[in-house]
């Protein structure tokens, strides 16, 4: 196992991509754990080429209108809504 931590900056960058706020303590903890976990993942470099047999098939159904959730049901779990719409945070 490598002793080198994943740099804090890299953890912060990934957290930004994943839209997860982290405090400094979490960044430090994750940066240590990630180096250990990622070096365990590096054993995958030894894996030879292998092909998956293709037992996949397309599954289609007719494109027909069917019953769905009512507007009320769809909005029921939203913390905030207005005039039948979800209400989100401001964009800018």
């Amino acid at each position, binding site marked *: 196992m490598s002793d080198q931590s994943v740099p804090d900056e890299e953890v912060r960058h990934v957290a930004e991509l994943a839209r*997860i706020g982290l405090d400094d303590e979490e960044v430090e903890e994750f940066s240590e754990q990630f180096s250990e976990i990622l070096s365990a993942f590096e054993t995958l470099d030894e894996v030879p080429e292998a092909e998956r047999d293709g037992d996949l098939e397309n599954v289609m159904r007719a494109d027909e209108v069917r019953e769905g959730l009512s507007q009320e049901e769809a909005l029921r*779990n939203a913390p905030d809504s207005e005039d039948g719409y979800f209400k989100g945070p401001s964009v800018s």
Partner: protein
Amino acid sequence: MSGDSIFITKERIAGDREGPLAGERVAVKDNISTEGVRTTCGSAMLSEYVPPYDATVVERLKDAGAEIVGKANMDEFGMGSTTETSHFGSTENPAAEGHVPGGSSGGSAAAVAAGEADLALGTDTGGSIRNPAAFCGVVGIKPTYGLVSRYGLVAYANSLEQIGPLAPTVEGAARLLDAIAGPDERDATTRREGAETDYAGAVDGDVDGLSIGIPTELVEGAHDGVRERFWDAIDELESRGASSHEVSLPSIEHAVAAYYVIAMSEASSNLARYDGVRYGPDTDSEGNWNESFADVRDRGFGDEVKRRILLGTYALSAGYHEKYYGKAQQARAWVEQDFEEAFEEADVLASPTMPVPPFELGESLDDPLQMYLSDANTVPVNLANLPAISVPAGTTDGLPVGFQLIGPKFGEKRIVRAASALEG
């Protein structure tokens, strides 16, 4: 033990109809949607979420006449091996005081072990039905991918997870599987093979002539007491006319890494939907769109969930995609090939379900990598989309040990039959 730590929500949904499960009390893992009853996934993020519809398996339970008695505790979003990552607190193992019930379907297994339910539904992404079945001394089946509909299951890692039964006996698990198996037009990954099944009919203990392959890689590293119980079970099957031989699965040593890379990558994508707008905790964040989302997700997710989302995002990010995700897919294909070859010379494969006896409560939380490694015997099955069953195989130092039988795709009957031979 009381049911207090077993269920997140206790709720009686009566089965008033006649059916094959009439009179049975069933616990449902809390990541399976139940109309009008909150479904939390063990997370603060969904602590107040009430689904407007039933999962297909829940509809089928109702149609079969079962009574649902509660939503069972679980590791948050199915991420954990001990049920200790649940936002609602951990569940104690009714079969081993002071120990974890296993994870992530720990509440479901504990409900059955404590007699709080006759049967239970769990989900298995990397062993999450078999692991708690082994730790709690009950039976659990991870079905072939595509046998059971995942419609209404809150997704963690779609390509790996299946809903399956837990029960005190092989027969009970088989009957519950009969009730929920079969194609569903709302889940295009379900297959015809489950349409008309009679797994309960296979519970006859007949293993005469059965050929059992034993992957040495899954036995050698196991705890001494676990290994002893494993060989006792093999002896028992041989005394009833089965034969065993060693098989080698060289890909297996890469399975855990491949599993976690794939599961975390899928998780990072699936859990992107938790932004606090359509559901989730109310936030009084004053920030913009991105800042508000990051704030909701910081507060709504626990450490293990954050860890997996971040590692999955990392594994999929520019520059690392081929190194981690691409390689993991190659390893998955290799694991699948290895199993196919093993089944050319064996009817079933056998191993200990968990290489260790149940952890003590609190023992494994500080070291995530160590926890990931404990899944070594179960994750290869999910990577290869195979069915497997865990059946009790006695105890070591008073702690339950599970015996795992793995079958070829849609070979549920075969593993149910073989497992039933180990019951008194």
